[in-house]
């Protein structure tokens, strides 16, 4: 691993990290990254695996595959929202390859961006790559490409932290601070840095959790909207709850105010509905993917309501 961060330091801007490759390689084939070097970290054993730390949560190596997470009994028992989200990522084949670190770092998506060079030439490029025009929010200077990974909203609900390594040392940050909210420079990871580990705190253990994903096809698809909820209950009342949404903004977002809205209450349809309305207000989908923005925002409301009901009822 030291060797790896050494390479990163040496090549700085001209290098891309290859883990599972499921995002990087198709994007490179479309000419979306033109870095000279690729750093293959697939075989760094120390970054693979799930290590429970009694009393201190669990540490997940960034190279742990999504398939491994999906089937990890420890996680299913104690952090079910994560296994549920991991199980919905793309397809079984891609989960055999894709890693949790890669899923966290996943590039934002847009129909005007994830296209071949020839295609992008046809529309004169876009602000995220090679151009300076946004096709989904014309006139704006902001990139609205949507963050479209499934596990980060689950991790946000679990108050996850990530470890970032570089030649100058190791730092830890909350996952909620990792994303910028911009579609182009979407994450706070410098070119010389490597995301190495994910930590789930003990305080988030044993929360019930569900993840609901809007997709057109039952497999392969990335989310067009996604909702993760983690909830702790006590005597039929909500003791704590967090809810995050994905695929409808340039970053996965914890919905503010959900905890306050649910805390100390017994969940019923009306309450779940008002959480849904709140979540929908946080969603700012644009025409970055299939299905209209209005529909996707509406589904954030419906899926949130259903997720809250499901988690409260223990499904």
């Amino acid at each position, binding site marked *: 691993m030291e060797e790896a961060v050494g390479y990163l330091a040496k090549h700085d801007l001209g290098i891309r990290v290859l883990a599972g490759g499921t995002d990087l390689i198709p994007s490179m084939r479309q000419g979306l990254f033109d870095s000279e070097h690729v750093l293959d970290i697939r075989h760094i054993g120390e970054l693979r695996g799930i290590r429970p730390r009694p009393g201190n949560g669990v540490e997940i190596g960034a190279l742990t595959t999504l398939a491994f997470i999906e089937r990890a009994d420890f996680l299913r028992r104690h952090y079910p929202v994560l296994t549920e989200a991991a199980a919905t990522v793309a397809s079984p084949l891609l989960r055999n390859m894709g890693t949790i670190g890669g899923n966290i770092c996943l590039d934002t998506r847009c*129909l005007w961006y994830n296209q071949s060079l*020839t295609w992008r030439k046809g529309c*004169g*490029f876009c*602000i995220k790559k090679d151009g300076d025009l946004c096709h989904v929010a014309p006139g704006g200077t902001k990139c609205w490409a949507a963050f479209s990974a499934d596990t980060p909203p689950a991790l946000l609900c679990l108050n996850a932290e990530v470890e970032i390594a570089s030649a100058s040392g190791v730092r830890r940050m909350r996952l909620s601070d990792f994303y910028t909210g911009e579609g182009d420079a979407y994450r706070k990871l410098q070119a010389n840095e490597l995301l190495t580990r994910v930590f789930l705190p003990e305080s988030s253990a044993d929360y019930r959790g569900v993840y609901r994903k809007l997709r057109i*096809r*039952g497999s392969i698809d990335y989310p067009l909207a996604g909702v993760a909820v983690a909830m702790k209950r006590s005597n039929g009342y909500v003791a704590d709850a967090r809810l995050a949404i994905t695929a409808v903004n340039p970053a996965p977002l914890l919905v503010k105010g959900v905890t306050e809205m649910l805390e100390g209450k017994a969940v019923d349809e009306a309450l779940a509905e008002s959480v849904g309305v709140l979540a929908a207000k946080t969603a700012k989908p644009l025409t970055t993917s299939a299905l*209209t923005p209005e529909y996707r925002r509406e589904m954030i409301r419906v899926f949130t309501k259903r997720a809250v009901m499901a988690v409260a009822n223990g499904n």
Partner: protein
Amino acid sequence: MTDFSIIGKPIAMVDAAGKTTGSGKYTDDLNLPGMLVGRILHSPFPHARIKRIDTSRAAALDGVVAIVTGKDAPNPYGILPVGHDEHALALDKVRYVGDNVACVAAIDEATADQALELIDVEYEVLPAYFDPEESMKAEADLIHDNKPHNLEKDYHHVFGDPDKGFADADHVAEARFIANEVTHAAMEPHSTLAQFEIDSQTGKRGRLTVWSSTQVPYYLQHKLSLVLEMPMAQIRVIKPLVGGGFGGKSEVIPLEIIAAIAARAARAPVKITYTREEVFWAHRGRPRTIIDLKTCVKNDGRITAVKARVIQDGGAYCSYGVVTILYSGALLGALYDIPNIQYDGYRVLTNKPACGAMRGHGTVNVRFAFESQLDELAAKINLDPADIRQRNLLQPPCVTVNGLRVQSYGLPECIEKVVERSGWKQRKGKLPRSRGLGIACSHYVSGAANSIIRSDMPHSTVNIKIDRDGGVVVYTGASEIGQGSDTMTAQIAAETLGCSLGRVKIVAADTDLTPIDIGSYSSRVTFMAGNATLRAAEQVKKQIAAAAARKMSCAPEELIFRDDSVFRKNGHVGTAAFGRPAEQGSSASVSGRVEGQILRGSLQQKRKDEGPKDWMTFEEAVVAAIDFHGALTGTGSYAPPPEARGGKHKGGGVGPSPAYSYSAQVAEVSVDEETGEVTVHKVWAAHDCGRALNPVSVEGQIIGSVWMGMGQALTEEMVWKDGMLMNPGLLEYRSPSSVESPEVEPIIVESIDPEGPFGAKECSEGSLAATIPAIANAIYDAVGVRLHEVPFTPERVLAALRAQRGQKKINLTEGIDPTAPAKFREHGGSLWFRGKGPERHPLDPARREGPAEAAGGD
């Protein structure tokens, strides 16, 4: 009841092992020494004049062997004789984003790709047309100069007296239906390998051989001849395994011609394989169709008249378009008894890739509209949707009002079967809320009775050769594309000759070896190539029978060929001679024992004459015949009978078929009323295929058709924005995965067609069209909304539900995103956006010339 030994048995496809082991070769799997890779430069503009192409920088790149442009092959072509409007590489104009401009042949893909970026093309951008109804108003900047108003073709048919039909009716339904564009998305991207030989006599460039993923090798040979100005005899087209077609390989695709001209220029073999994006541009799928439909019925449910106005968004070239628009009208007939039909069809050009033939060619979208409307009328008059269909059946044999001859007609049985199997009578209307059942019917041609090349040439010809080894080689031009054509051919030959399947070898679709067959499209292969095979086999059988009859001292007519034996009727039934069972796969290469000696292929063997026999092995009979003639050969051909060729009206040539297949389906769906998501739980699909030659294959075709119909119904759609295809890949073009694919219960109905081979008709296309309306009608049954636009995406379903309940509207327009900018080419057609990009593309000329100048240019 006829007793067959090979027909009607579920057997593995004869080429299955090559497919399951990976040893079978598709075009892209082939390599030749010195082979170059070809890559194509595509237009970034939907409509532009090419002012100049400069290939000099690209040509100077090390590893580039040849660059070809439109000038290298200026002859126009097109699949239809009336539609010769294409150039494999654009000559003066590009007409869609993705149109072909130039091709580089280089030593490897990376070099070729690099060279593409060095070709400088100067375009004059022209106004473009994307919406067919807008395009029809065009006065200037026409897509093709000889097509005023961008109208490829329009037809106006009146059969019977529609006005009287409307006047006589008790109920009328009228609506606009829209079916968005879908594509074949066969798993194998198109691929072509082309090689020229040197002629021994002249010492110059000679014959051309093309290996290609094609459904139509003969048409390809013909068009190559036209464009390359070479005699057909100098061109050999070989079809290796083809990874699915569905119509997408049923005409000459630009890369097939481009590979040949690139090989000619490069003086080396050139292989071009499309990227998936290029496959979407080459396309030729089912056009976006706008259908204004009016149907009238009497109180008893009898249809009195139908009026349809159909507009098809055909894209930039004719392709099969004239045929598609005609099928859309013609196939209003031959399913039900409709006395009066008015049809107005418009095939319109737009600046998008050309649409062409796709599974269920021309009929699918109109069938969706019609079957939906019939359902609506049934509800109006309070009739069961299955009943209204049964009340409008044809009475065959008959000729429909629009000139289609119907003989075998299994539709009544199809309806009965699906009603019974689905529990329709007990369950319809009694399912829990938001779950429903829907029924619909469809039909399709078993090959077009009139070839697109108007001539008296047979549509299929098949040769059979049998030599002393007792092996039966069938030479057929019919193209196996996964539908089982080789297996069908082998089965018919083996059944007719009474030999085991293991003796039969199929040589398919190599224009040097196989007689002309017009190809695998319009579901014609079983009916036409099957009949030709049957006739060829009978011709050879006659020769064998004559010799065997001499040996057995009987009349040839008395002989029965079966299970690798020849015996006399009512005589000794001796099969499985010499311990050699007639099981399938029993190898023809290990010959049987004859009089204590191993009989091998080339043996010149004397046999003792033991006087008359009462039975012989197939091999003995063959050898007896060969002793007189040498190797046996037989030829059979098929041309549709004149009675089946349709009416004399303009456009009457499209629609007629020697036989029609029939399908009835029931779909069971549930609808999530909050999300609009539709789940198809099960589809019962009864299909009248005449006779199921291979039940496993027939069921596979039925299931595959239903499944593809479900894809179009729910998830598949080519989404366009200003001429840009937003989803040119299998990630964004959502062909269903295994998890949401429903159970399909295929039900085979056998009406035994009087003219089909062993009574068989088509089974690969007809089922598709019924699935979409069956699902639509089931959605109506479930939640009471009538959907008018395909696919039924969750947002469209939700929008309809909201409208029905007067709830807050979901903002939607027909497939076009209302929040997207109306025009994205705000940079005035310049390829490179002017301004200060954060990271200009390295190929941007402004960047090449230096940043200072670019800034000053603004």
